[in-house]
Every structure is written in structure tokens, then in C-alpha cells.
């Protein structure tokens, strides 16, 4: 039974060329992240996320055999891009995971119980939504201090609302379905009804949303890093690498590699997640089966 299901998913995935491309890209990134210590051995094994100083000259250096992606801000870009893959996954998985969990909890409580519970929770959601994300994240990071973990906290704090609303809306719709009444008529408990009967019917848009957000979260984190709110200088993070090129913006000739390499990594990362997200939607949604 399970075997059959897995077979079906795999078969569908391989029949869809764009999904396959997304999957290959994603696997590529995963391999890079896992093999980072092999591809770019850290100088200081206790602190691998610090990009080692490559040169004392402040001028950016174009790609060379020794530094294949060039050097900017005294740091080796290749090392930063490789180890930055791990950072990207960390940001994506943790932020998307935690904020989705918060969103699902709040959304399903609001949707299932309705009434004043719904009213209060949704007004709180509205308040959070009414604050422009970047401004809110900036204020919060300023309060909490610099660092990648602080950025992630800010992104979680202001990142759960869309999921909450999505889940609530879906639950409002699904809980009126006759099969929910049928389950109640069979004596199934409230908790089991939410978890077994309602969530599986509402979770698919959320799974798609998660995988779409995984990519875009990395861009947001990079934007914050670029604004100087992200990881500290020298941290292996694509956004931080990009922020180095800020000083050379007017001189593209001299610093193109600092934008192109981390930028490409980021675009491909987002693309991979979006393609996989699309494919997941097609495959998992039982209403699209057949």
C-alpha cells in the first residue's frame, strides 16, 4: 500500500520535466550543503561559517584558479557560496517550519472553534499583517541585535499570518463538508477530526506554500543582510556576500563576480523550491488525482 503510493509519487515526479529539474537542482544544493567541508575545507573547524580572510587588500579580486569566484571584502566568494548553501537551508527550514507551525495552530483553532476565539485570533493576525514586513523586521532586529538567529526570529514573528489565514479559510470550508458530519456521526473525537479529517484536506496548499516560501525567505534574509541587519560581516551567507558589493555598486566591472555568483546561487535555490512546490501540489492534492 505504502509502496504503491511511493511508486506513484516517484512516477509522477519523473514524468514532469520541470518538477524533475527542480528536484535535480534541489538535490544538487543538498549535496553541496552536505559536502561543504569537502569542497571548501574550513581553516578553523570550530567556526566553519566564518569565511577565512583571503587577502589583506581591500580591493576586490576577479576569479582566479586559487579563488574561483573571486575575492571581495578580503573574503573568498567561493567559500562563502558553498557554506552559504547550509545557511540558506537553515534559514529556509527553520523559518518556514516554525512560522508554518504557528500559523497552522492559530489558523486551525480560529477556524474550527469559530465565534469569539476566531474573532480575537484573526484581529491579532490583522494587526501583524498591517505592519510592513521589512520595517517590522528591521525594528525587531534592531531591538534584538545583529545576527542570523535574530533575523530568523524576526522573520518568524512576522511570517506566520499568511499560513494562519490560509488554514483558517480552508478549515471554515472543510468543516461544513458532509464527511465531517459523517465522521462525527461515527463517534470520532474533536481532536481526531481536526488532525485526521480536516487538516489533511487543508494542508496541501500549506505544503505548497512552505516550499514556495523556503526560497523566498532566503531572498528576504538576503535583503535584510544587504541592508546591514543580517549576519555579521564575514559570515558565510549569500546576502552578506552581496552586501560586500554594496561599496562597489558603481563599479560593476570591478565587482561583478560578487553579485553574479551568490546571486545565481540564490536564484537557482528559489527556482528549485518553486518547481518542487508546484510539483508537490500536483501530486499530493488528492482532489487533483486521477
Amino acid at each position, binding site marked *: 500500500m505504502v509502496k504503491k503510493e511511493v511508486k506513484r509519487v516517484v512516477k509522477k515526479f519523473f514524468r514532469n520535466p520541470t518538477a524533475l529539474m527542480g528536484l535535480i537542482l534541489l538535490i544538487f544544493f543538498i549535496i553541496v550543503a552536505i559536502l561543504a567541508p569537502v569542497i571548501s575545507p574550513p581553516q578553523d573547524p570550530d567556526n566553519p561559517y566564518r569565511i577565512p580572510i583571503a587577502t589583506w587588500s581591500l580591493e576586490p579580486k576577479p576569479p582566479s584558479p586559487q579563488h574561483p569566484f573571486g575575492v571581495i571584502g578580503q573574503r573568498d566568494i567561493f567559500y562563502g557560496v558553498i557554506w552559504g548553501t547550509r545557511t540558506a537551508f537553515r534559514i529556509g527550514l527553520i523559518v518556514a517550519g516554525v512560522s508554518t507551525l504557528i500559523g497552522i495552530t492559530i489558523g486551525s483553532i480560529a477556524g474550527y472553534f469559530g465565534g469569539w476565539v476566531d474573532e480575537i485570533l484573526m484581529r491579532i493576525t490583522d494587526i501583524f499583517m498591517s505592519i510592513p514586513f521589512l520595517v517590522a523586521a528591521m525594528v525587531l532586529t534592531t531591538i534584538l541585535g545583529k545576527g542570523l538567529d535574530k533575523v530568523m526570529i524576526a522573520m518568524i514573528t512576522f511570517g506566520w499570518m499568511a499560513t494562519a489565514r490560509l488554514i483558517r479559510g480552508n478549515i471554515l470550508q472543510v468543516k461544513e463538508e458532509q*464527511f465531517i458530519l459523517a465522521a462525527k456521526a461515527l463517534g470520532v473525537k474533536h481532536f481526531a477530526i481536526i488532525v485526521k479529517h480536516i487538516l489533511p484536506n487543508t494542508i496541501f496548499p500549506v505544503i505548497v506554500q512552505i516550499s514556495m516560501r523556503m526560497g523566498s525567505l532566503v531572498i528576504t534574509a538576503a535583503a535584510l543582510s544587504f541592508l546591514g541587519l543580517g549576519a555579521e560581516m564575514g559570515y558565510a551567507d549569500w546576502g552578506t556576500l552581496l552586501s560586500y558589493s554594496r561599496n562597489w555598486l558603481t563599479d560593476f566591472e570591478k565587482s561583478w563576480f560578487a553579485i553574479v555568483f551568490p546571486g545565481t546561487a540564490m536564484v537557482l535555490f528559489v527556482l528549485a523550491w518553486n518547481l518542487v512546490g508546484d510539483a508537490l501540489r500536483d501530486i499530493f492534492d488528492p482532489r487533483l488525482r486521477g
Partner: protein
Amino acid sequence: MKDVLLQVKNLKTYFFTEDGVVKAVDGVNFEVYRGETLGLVGESGCGKSVTSLSILRLLDEKGRIVDGEIIFEGKNLLDLSEEEMRNIRGNDIAMIFQEPMVALNPVYTVGDQIMEAIILHQKVGKNEARKKAIEMLRKVGIPEPEKRIDEYPHELSGGMRQRAMIAMALSCHPKLLIADEPTTALDVTIQAQILELMKELQKEFGMSIIMITHDLGVIAEMADRVAVMYAGKIVEYADVKTLFKDPKHPYTWGLMNSIPRLDVEQEKLKPIPGIVPDALNFPPGCKFHPRCEFATDRCRSEEPEIIEVEKDHLIACWNWEELEKVKKIRRIGDAV
């Protein structure tokens, strides 16, 4: 002396909406004997479904049972805790629904859903439950149940889905099955098959059925006794033969006249004029009077109680004797 399984006494279920109180069920009395089928007939919106949901206590937030008793095997269901009630649902009283298309959860296989009920109430393991589920599917006439059990609802036809629903409802051998328009969404040949199946299973399990429908054909086929509902009340209550041969309430009489018959030559079907009154503002007096050709001043101001006019034949009407005269005249007319 027949054994009473379920007795509904003076049940009142109201819905408290923003526009006012809707008296969906307003003082309904009936009983269901062991092994028999009670038909609950009426037009849409007369309170049949609300009555059945009240028995299982599955009303939504706005609906409340404001008065009455529902005695099932000597216990008043309205006094039970939610926990005790859950043990009764699916186990002692089960329900099947009108739309087999939407009454099965699309994300689980048919087997998962039948097994859920079995595991829940019979405290058996997964393998045992699966065996029982397959057995149940075979009983409801689904071919190749070993294969069908792993199929999703969308892979089954409407008739098959309704069979699966019946299998699910009967998996714990309930004493009472509430069937809410179980065949309305199916085409006629499938309807006949499903009704036949329900009769067979009723005999096999010895259960009682409350058959809710607006289809008098289904009632004639299935029911032993019939309660006719109109605007939240039972207006006529009799055994099925008496009801069809000798309807005494003008509403029931009107219903009978509005269905085509093969044995009498009819020029036109005679529908009951008007529609079911708006539940938010029922007419004063007898709720049927605006549509009734026998209505008098008394009907317009005073609501009739349901009374026994012949043995085991109850109706709620002030002027049923008028109708009797008319029926006699028409019968003579038929003969001529």
C-alpha cells in the same frame, strides 16, 4: 407487545439566528420499535433532517434542543455527557447521508474510513478491522472487496459510494440506522438496489431504520409506519398501509394526489398550492392553513394538537371530517 427502541418525546429544536429564532422542530413525538422501519416524510425544510441530527446531538453551534426527551434503550440521550454520546454514535446509532459524493473523506481510502469506525468502537487491531471491513464491503454487494478497500472515494461510482457509506454505518452493527434521503442523489435503478440492500441488511442485523425522505415511493417500499412532517411538526402518524389507503390529514392527502398513479385515470397531477412557510415567521394557527382548501377561522387562529382519530392513526387537524366527506364523494365519482 412490541419493544420500543427509541422514543422521541416533545422534541423542540430551535435555531438561534441573527434574524430570529427558527423553530425547525417544534414538539415532535414518535417512537421506533425494534426491527421496524419508520418513515419520516415531508417537503424540504420541514425539519426531518434536524430531527435526525437532534437524535445524534450533532446540531451546529446555532441549533439547540430546547425541550423534550430522546429515550434510547431507556436512557435519555440528552442527559448523556459528550463522551457517552460519542460511544453511542456509530456504535448504537449510525447515520447515512444524502450525498454519497461528499459524505466520504476524499483523502482516505474507503477501507481507512470503514476501519476507523471499527477500531474506534470495537477495540480491535488493524488487521482484524481490515478483515471486518472487507467482510462488510462484501455484504453490501461491492464486487472484489479486497481490491476496492484500497480505493479512494473518487474511484467509485455513486452507487458504490453509497454502498460503502452503508458499510461504514453498519460496520459496528448499530441498533438504529438513520438514513437521511439515502437514495435521493442516485438514479432510479441504483435507488431500487440500495433500498433492497437496506432491507436485506435490516433483516440480517435486526436493526431499526428511520427513513427520512420526501419520496413517497421510497416510503411505500420501505416503511412499516410513517410520520408525515410539516413545518416542524408531525401532522399525521399511521402505519404505511393505512396512510396510503386512507390519508386523513389534508396535507398528506394533497401529497398523495400530487404523485402520478397507474391505477386511476388522472387528467392532471394536482400539486399542493403554495410553498412551505418561512420558518422565521410561521402563520398563526395551523401552519398548513394558507395552503389548505378546508381551512376555517379556527384553523387560522388555533393550532390543532395531534390526536388519535382511529386506532394507531394520529393526525393534527381540526377539519379532518370535512376531508372524509370529500373523499367519499370523489370515490363515488371515480366509480362512475
